[in-house]
């Protein structure tokens, strides 16, 4: 007899606790403005990432198409995945001295883990982390990027 009452009591308390839970869900059901869902991708135009967001490695250029990279290769050494390759070339400058400058700063986005170690390693702050995050693409070859723009020069006054 006792177990029978327990059984009934359990059913009632089960229903009761179920209702307690449903009270919580009902609260959100009837106050939809409290919901937190973001309507991505409809909100793409207004979507702002945090300024420290690590989306990709980029090399900022100024209006004269100049960057700060000296081609020292420290970022290449710091990268754990080998996603940076520095190809440098030697040129003869106005004073007739030989000088090594950057030819191509190759960045393999597909191998990058966005760890920020290259940005930390760079002595002249030539590379920074960009905000773009929609990297999905049909073709893998587009993930290999050359960060210094064609025809770009190194900025004046960057120490080697």
């Amino acid at each position, binding site marked *: 007899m006792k*177990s029978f009452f327990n*059984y009934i009591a359990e059913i009632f308390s089960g229903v*009761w*606790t179920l209702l307690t839970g449903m009270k919580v869900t009902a609260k959100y059901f009837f106050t939809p403005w409290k919901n937190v869902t973001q309507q991505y991708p409809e909100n793409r135009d207004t979507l702002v990432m945090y300024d420290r967001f690590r989306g990709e490695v980029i090399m900022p250029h100024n209006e004269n198409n100049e960057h700060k990279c000296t081609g020292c290769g420290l970022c290449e050494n710091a990268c754990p995945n080998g996603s940076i390759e520095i190809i440098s070339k030697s040129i003869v400058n106005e004073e007739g001295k030989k000088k090594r400058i950057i030819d191509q700063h190759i960045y393999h986005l597909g191998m990058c883990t966005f760890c920020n170690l290259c940005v930390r390693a760079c002595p002249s702050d030539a590379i920074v982390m960009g905000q773009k995050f929609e990297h999905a693409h049909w073709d893998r070859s587009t993930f290999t990027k050359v960060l210094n723009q064609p025809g770009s020069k190194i900025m004046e006054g960057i120490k080697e």
Partner: protein
Amino acid sequence: MKRGREIVGIVGKRKPDSVCKTSQRFDRMVNKKNKVKGNKDIGLSVTSRNKEVNLAQSETNQAMTNEQLIEQLTSANPDAVVKQGSQYPEITVAHDKLHAFMQNIKSDSSLAFDYLVCETGVDYPEFIQVVYHLESTSHRHFMVVKANTENRETATLDTVSDIWPTAEFHECEIYDLLGIRFNNHPNLRRYFLDDTWGHPLRKDFHDDIHVVER
């Protein structure tokens, strides 16, 4: 089939309480239930917790310092190499005495190393070393035991899985990655890799297909 399950009593209606913690809620629930049913053996009461913590702390006071530990280990094992490592006392035991030594430090009540924290294999040029990090949960002292295999080719060592069950799985991992065979191990199998692989954590492991060296 035996089921350790009981029909849980009425939870009933509780007043909403904004800063009501899970534990408090639950305590109340249990207390209420115990009162209602007179059921003591549910054992979910949380009141004994604080007592237990105090106990653990008072036991901590009896912990041996590293020096005492080294002293005791040296006197008990004259042929083993005992030294103070960078953090913890380290003892290197001969491979044929390993099992007896381990059994001893677990059963000795002043040492009581009952918790095997970590078991590691390290490959050295002449031998493979197995490193045991041990802690005593009652005294809270910590020690490192090392044992070297005789050679690298037929690396064998006695299992300690009968002393600490967790060693069974760590030893499988070591067997997989370093190729040490453990004598008397109940179920020595490869966990991560299949049989076509060698033992990758050995320093002479080379794999032209899967491993790209820079």
